[in-house]
């Protein structure tokens, strides 16, 4: 579809019909963006096609439950929702502790659809929220990159973002988590900031604050924005790029943004009280000082200005010192220096593992491994440096922002796996710039070395041809070369326009331009080869992304599959267990499990839980961890004091599911031991090694988690071979005294135990197994006490 259009658009190479070309370019861009949106949406549907339309993982279940509540009860009840079914008996004020953006978004979509008489269920809306917003995110990327380097780079970046695996991993259909909308909000806020920076329009500045508000509503990662933008402003000031546009881009954002952020209940006064926000206020002060200085400079003569500067600087320094001293004293007086644990672990990556086991225990808070970069951003990792260089040619306010963005996000992604997600858009933007510039240079070189004047058409023809030979009739791939060939003319026309303004004489312009371009041109063969190589690189990226979307990131994690020689095995044990709880237990019964399964239990089984994935109360989690690491009787007492009726453990030893409770157990010990010092980690380790075989410590073999996981396990294969730990377990035959097994799922992945009621009677001391001899040999009572041989 697009190939003939390009050729027709490119045939009249004269600039007399620039408007026509612009119009064509605009229409093309629109359609390409539309296709990118479709691509972004559809590549995320693998999970629905391969599995089913179901909410994924852990946190999305909570969001889903909150959305259900919102759609049922309305926004005011949601705001004031005190949930008595989690964190028993403490409860949780959901309205004040949740980022409401995602919920409100999905709730609004549902409400809109319903008022249009489209009766979709809340679950369906929730499942498809993330793919829809990833399309928005790629459009926002287009807007951002367009402001930085023009529409061509914008389209390339948008296409890259639409399928970057890192983002796909958090936004496949069903992954109904905050990040699904937050990444869109993040990019959109940045793009509006750049837009304001480029235009100096107060309108965009206001929009920017509203976008920032949406981001604050959506995700705790908003602190990234409110630190990155001040950093950029500071950078601009320091490099002497202060302008009134910068002021308009920044000052309204801080004032309006902070006011709006304080409206979100979960943020509230944090917007002015915590250290995460201090940078923005400091820069706010600085930019005012700078603005004032520029103003004074404007009205004073240079000589007077110098005098004034020396005066102000000497006084100002003293005041600054005093203010900074007060600030430091204030910050230092709080124990964590005013920073929350998660933020501190960003600044000092070893902080969490040293002090907060509960943060360190979450797998997505671990630092990433090198392969995960190649997995998550693939070839972009190679294109990013080129993109950074391209940003420096020439360095504008906007491109310096991109450089800053990529630099900081690379650092953060190195601290936490989960922040790869912030890196992905930055990588896409820089790579988009790099790719677009590379194509620009290469095709231009080819064009000016080919014989004939009407080179444009041929180049485009050739380019598309080579593309189609590379592309294997894949829709996704067909779109890419197309878009590359498109953004080039539109870009060129822009350049021409610019030159047109500069130079009035058209003829002279043609000459100089042609000369200039000749000088810049690369050899023809080199250009063609590198063009082909770039296309191959792009093809690799597409293949990898589709593979990642289809195979790696689409599993909903509540349904597991494994492919063996016998065929496909489906492990639907989680839902089996939750359904059992839902149908066989009393509605007010309390279920204890490790916190990972809290959200799912409340959402799927509708039972009260003790702890859940919102790890706000370390002591409560430590209590459960202590119970799990205690012997049966002590554990029973802890659970009984919390009114627990059922205990749920996840056990993967039978089918080899590695993320089960035994593998998480050391974290329970650590977190429990952090609050209750009688639980000591070394008691569970043999020579520093965590093991459950016959070498395991007695503490380990007697703790509740071991017993609940391995109770009756020997009955499965006679040897009690654990497929995850690849060993036979240490203690195979034992009985439970205070718990009774009530349900074990088909593949033994979830086991549910009930606490036995306290004994109705207390038995006497006399042993039941009275030997017959003692009853026959009467009055030999003392004989049993003493050594009979003496």
């Amino acid at each position: 579809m697009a190939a003939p259009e390009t050729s027709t658009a490119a045939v009249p190479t004269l600039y007399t019909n620039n408007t026509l070309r612009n119009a064509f370019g605009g229409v093309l861009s629109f359609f390409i963006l539309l296709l990118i949106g479709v691509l972004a949406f559809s590549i995320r549907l693998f999970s629905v096609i391969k599995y089913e339309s179901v909410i994924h993982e852990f946190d999305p279940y909570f969001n889903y439950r909150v959305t259900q509540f919102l759609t049922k009860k309305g926004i005011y009840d949601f705001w004031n929702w005190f949930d008595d079914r989690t964190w028993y008996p403490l409860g949780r004020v959901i309205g004040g502790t949740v980022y409401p953006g995602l919920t409100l978004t999905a709730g609004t979509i549902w409400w809109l659809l319903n008022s249009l008489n489209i009766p979709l269920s809340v679950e369906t809306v929730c499942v498809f929220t993330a793919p829809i917003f990833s399309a928005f995110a790629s459009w926002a990327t287009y807007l951002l990159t367009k402001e930085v380097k023009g529409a061509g780079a914008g389209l390339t970046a948008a296409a890259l973002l639409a399928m970057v695996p890192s983002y796909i991993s958090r936004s496949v259909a069903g992954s109904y988590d905050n990040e699904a909308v937050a990444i869109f909000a993040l990019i959109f806020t940045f793009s509006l900031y750049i837009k304001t920076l480029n235009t100096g329009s107060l309108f965009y500045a206001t929009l920017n604050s509203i976008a920032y508000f949406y981001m604050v509503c959506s995700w705790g990662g908003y602190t990234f924005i409110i630190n990155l933008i001040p950093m950029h402003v500071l950078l601009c000031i320091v490099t002497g790029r202060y302008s009134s546009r910068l002021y308009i881009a920044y000052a309204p954002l801080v004032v309006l943004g902070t006011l709006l952020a304080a409206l979100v209940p979960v943020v509230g006064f944090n917007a002015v009280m915590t250290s995460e926000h201090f940078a923005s206020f400091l820069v706010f002060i600085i930019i005012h000082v700078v603005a004032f200085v520029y103003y004074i400079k404007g009205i004073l003569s240079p000589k007077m200005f110098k005098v004034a500067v020396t005066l102000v600087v000497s006084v100002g320094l003293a005041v600054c010192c005093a203010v900074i001293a007060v600030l430091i004293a204030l910050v230092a007086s709080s124990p964590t220096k005013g920073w929350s644990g998660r933020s501190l672990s960003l600044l000092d990556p070893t902080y969490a593992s040293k002090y907060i086991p509960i943060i360190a225990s979450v797998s997505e808070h671990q630092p990433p491994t090198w392969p995960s970069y190649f997995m998550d951003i693939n070839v972009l990792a190679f294109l990013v440096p080129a993109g950074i260089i391209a940003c420096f040619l020439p360095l504008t306010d906007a491109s310096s922002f991109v450089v800053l963005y990529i630099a900081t996000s690379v650092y953060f992604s190195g601290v936490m796996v989960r922040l790869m997600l912030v890196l992905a858009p930055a990588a896409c933007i820089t790579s988009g710039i790099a790719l677009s510039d590379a194509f620009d240079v290469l095709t231009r070189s080819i064009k000016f070395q080919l014989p004939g004047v009407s080179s444009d058409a041929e180049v485009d023809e050739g380019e598309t041809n080579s593309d189609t030979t590379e592309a294997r009739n894949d829709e996704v791939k067909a779109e890419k070369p197309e878009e590359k060939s498109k953004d080039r003319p539109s870009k060129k026309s822009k350049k021409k326009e610019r030159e047109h303004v500069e130079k009035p004489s058209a003829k002279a312009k043609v000459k100089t331009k042609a000369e200039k371009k000749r000088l810049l041109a690369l050899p023809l063969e080199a250009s063609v080869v590198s063009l082909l190589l770039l296309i191959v690189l792009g093809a690799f990226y597409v293949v990898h992304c589709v593979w990642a979307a289809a195979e790696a990131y689409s599993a909903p994690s509540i349904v597991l599959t494994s492919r063996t020689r016998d065929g496909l095995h489906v492990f639907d044990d989680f839902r089996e267990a939750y359904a059992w709880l839902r149908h066989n237990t009393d509605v007010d019964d309390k279920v204890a499990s490790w916190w990972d399964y809290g959200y799912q239990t409340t959402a799927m089984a509708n039972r009260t839980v003790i702890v859940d994935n919102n790890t706000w109360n370390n002591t409560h989690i430590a209590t459960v961890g202590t119970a799990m690491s205690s012997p049966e009787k002590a554990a029973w007492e802890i659970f009984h004091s919390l009114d627990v009726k059922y205990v749920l453990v996840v056990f993967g030893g039978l089918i080899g599911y590695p993320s089960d409770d035994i593998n998480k157990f050391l974290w329970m010990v650590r977190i429990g031991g952090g609050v209750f010092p009688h639980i000591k980690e070394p008691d569970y380790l043999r020579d520093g090694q965590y093991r459950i075989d016959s070498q395991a410590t007695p503490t380990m073999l007697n703790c509740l988690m071991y017993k609940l996981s391995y109770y009756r396990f020997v009955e499965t294969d006679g040897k009690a071979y654990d497929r995850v730990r690849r060993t036979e377990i240490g203690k195979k035959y034992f009985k439970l005294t205070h718990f009774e097994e009530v349900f074990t799922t088909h593949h033994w992945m979830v086991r549910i135990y009930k606490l036995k009621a306290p004994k109705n009677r207390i038995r006497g001391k006399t042993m039941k197994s009275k030997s017959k001899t003692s009853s026959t040999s009467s009055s030999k009572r003392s004989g049993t006490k003493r050594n009979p041989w003496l």
Partner: protein
Amino acid sequence: MEKFWVIFATSIFILLPFTCNSFSLETPTDRRVLVLLDDFAIKSSHSSYFNSLRSRGFDLDFKLADDPKVALQRYGQYLYDALILFCPSVERFGGSIDVAAIINFVDSGHDLIIAADVNASDLIREVATECGVDFDEDPSAMVIDHTGYAVSETEGDHTLIVSADFIKSDVILGSKKITAPVLFQGIGHSLNPVNSLVLKVLSASPSAYSANPKSKLSTPPLLTGSAIALVSVIQARNNARILISGSLSMFSNRFFRSGVQKSGSSTKHEKSGNEQFLTEISKWVFHERGHLKAVNVKHHKVGETDEPALYRINDELVYSVEIYEWSGESWEPYVADDVQVQFYMMSPYVLKTLSNDHKGLYSASFKVPDVYGVFQFKVEYQKLGYTSLSLAKQIPVRPYRHNEYERFMPTAYPYYGAAFSTMAGFFIFSFVHLYNK
């Protein structure tokens, strides 16, 4: 899958007795009593005890302990409300009854009277042990008291002893004081001091010991002094009551009628205290006394009558409960000044004594603490001799809604003033700045 069903079914089967308590709330007193005897001679030799039960309306069903047709339940329904084991020497019960059946009978809320004797069988001992009572391990041991024996015509071996060391509880032994001491001849037992469910009703005197009277005492006896329990009662957690006595003969007509004189004491009672003691205690065991019920647990905000689904912090509320005691024929208001209610979340936040109106209505009014969470109204009433009351009602307490805070606080007026004056000042400044050229 089938396996799970079996497990599930069995677990239900085990749990079922716990769930269906046999006391009907209306009439907790037992009606049908199965009496298992060693031989029918006991029926006549202990007739006055049985007659006193019959006269109080009990339906006694006498069976030989090894009768093959004897059964406690049929089609899952218990045929009797209580069981009297006057068969100390039985080695094996007839029919389907075994130790587990008797224990299940108790665990499903039925009452039990066991009278053991010298040479009590292992079976009876095992039942007693399950209930928390350990008879002297030596089967032929008896309680001997060389100072507190009953004076009789023949000197004897001082195994017929006299005891007046009763538990001090009007609920268990009735309000009328037992003046005459009780005659006892049989085996003693000991109780585990940490066992909170078992009560020593009649204990031996400090000079008593437990030994075989026929053999020479070679080693110090294990059970001595007032640690020896002669008669004990157990109230299980489900309020089933059990009486365990080490002597069958103390229930006999002979002991009921005989006069009693403690050695070394000049007072001679015409009639032993056995009849009064055993009759009164059987009233307690068969729930004619000391059985409480709590009904109509209500709570509401002060000034309202409807029970809310949840409270807000700092609400004033009223909690009330009606407690009645079973008098044998009807429910009478229970009057006490020590019933307390807890407002409980992991620990009691409010602990308040309920005031009563002498008509059984107990109530207390208090303020919800300034803490939100899932609370419980808890009444844990455990008083000696009474059935335990354990009421727990869950109630969430929520924080203020967003619009329940004060809208304008007087202390904040300087801030309001500052905000509005700044706004006005800014407006004027803009106006001047824009149009003053």
